[in-house]
């Protein structure tokens, strides 16, 4: 049964993630008063990338990016099959480190700056993601996604601070303004293309597909806060993503220093308050 969920995630997540990306681009265009591309545009893009000549700067970048895709898919599959949340978090970290290594493999200054900024991003959001796993444990008594999802009370009431902190970080994870410092989507540019500068053709296609996997996984993570009622969870996750699109269009990119400081300040204060309150007043 659990394996079935994992397989379903690996097959369906790229389809769902690609559709979300397509709707995202359409809505972004509408917010800017444009027509926007077709909803299936992300699939056309990846299809096109697979048709392109495969230009490789350093041979090792192929393996790093492939490993990045595999580990993103693995951590998502582990999550949806109800596995250990801590393992999911660390597998995700490993995946991003592999992407950074792939960017470092090419000796290009643009790709280097992108890789360094990706590391800064990791440093910024990683404490929050681990604290979120800790928060789920303190609230439900288990690190297993199956148990957290089956928790009878609404977790959003027990973990509001963790929820807001995680939402603050989501902007960075989805590569959206104001925190899209390593690379971004759409027609925005960030020091050429940041971490993806030296990837082209099918390698870039793999980075895109990995991002679709990650989007679905992240929305799944937010689902847990509302898991006691799937209908509310679906609406909540949709509203969260719409809010992200709005924030993306309403804000300008900030400097990396501010991004790091503000994320640490907001997430650490909110989640610490939340965890302390949970210890003393509620939880188990």
């Amino acid at each position: 049964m659990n394996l079935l969920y994992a397989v379903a995630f690996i097959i369906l997540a790229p389809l769902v993630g690609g559709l979300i990306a397509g709707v995202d681009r359409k809505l972004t265009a509408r917010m800017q008063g444009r027509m926007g591309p077709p909803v299936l545009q992300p699939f056309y893009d990846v299809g096109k990338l697979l048709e392109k000549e495969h230009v490789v700067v350093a041979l090792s970048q192929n393996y790093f990016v492939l490993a990045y895709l595999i580990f993103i898919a693995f951590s998502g599959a582990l999550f949806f099959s109800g596995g250990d949340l801590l393992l999911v978090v660390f597998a995700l970290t490993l995946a991003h480190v592999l992407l950074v290594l792939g960017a470092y493999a090419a000796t290009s200054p643009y790709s280097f700056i992108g890789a360094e900024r990706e590391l800064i991003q990791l440093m910024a959001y990683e404490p929050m993601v681990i604290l979120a796993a800790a928060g789920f444990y303190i609230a439900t008594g288990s690190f297993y996604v199956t148990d957290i999802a089956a928790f009878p009370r609404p977790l959003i009431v027990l973990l509001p601070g963790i929820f807001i902190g995680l939402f603050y970080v989501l902007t960075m994870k989805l590569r959206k303004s104001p925190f899209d410092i390593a690379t971004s989507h759409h027609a925005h540019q960030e020091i050429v293309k940041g971490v993806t500068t030296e990837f082209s053709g099918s390698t870039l296609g793999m980075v895109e597909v990995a991002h679709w996997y990650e989007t679905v996984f992240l929305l799944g993570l937010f689902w847990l806060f509302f898991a006691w009622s799937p209908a509310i969870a679906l609406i909540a996750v949709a509203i969260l993503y719409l809010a992200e699109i709005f924030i993306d269009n309403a804000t300008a990119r900030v400097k990396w220093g501010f991004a790091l400081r503000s994320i640490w300040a907001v997430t650490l204060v909110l989640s610490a308050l939340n965890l302390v309150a949970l210890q003393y007043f509620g939880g188990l």
Partner: protein
Amino acid sequence: MAYMKRSPWIIHYDGSSCNGCDIEVLACLTPLYDVERFGIINTGNPKHADIFVVTGSVNEQNREVIRNIYEQMPQPKVVVALGICACSGGVFRECYNVEGGMDKVIPVDVYVPGCPVRPEQIIDGVVKALGVLEEKRARMKSGAPAEATV
């Protein structure tokens, strides 16, 4: 499958243009013309680009830059020369430092004259380039080199 025509990403380089054509290129991205309707994205990275949109004429300082950008783009790729300067050197062709149009340095697939080119013409030129791009992809798939004339 022909996804190539549905997702052309461009890189725009300003040779020694007066900025007239470049303003018109940017106008294509605004809500009025919105070329993202056709999946066109301005990437700013030659390694991600399919269409090299170039304005202005070739001079001694930019010929290496133009060739470098062109060579970094993965096949299949097309070059669109925008504006009369990129097509032939325009009014500057007799200048001591100007060599002429873009075809002095790289193979140009579509010429779009005008001073400056209108956004409608640019979109027309890029759509024409999509046909060439598709041809090159088909040629590449059959095992032949993407460029017909080598």
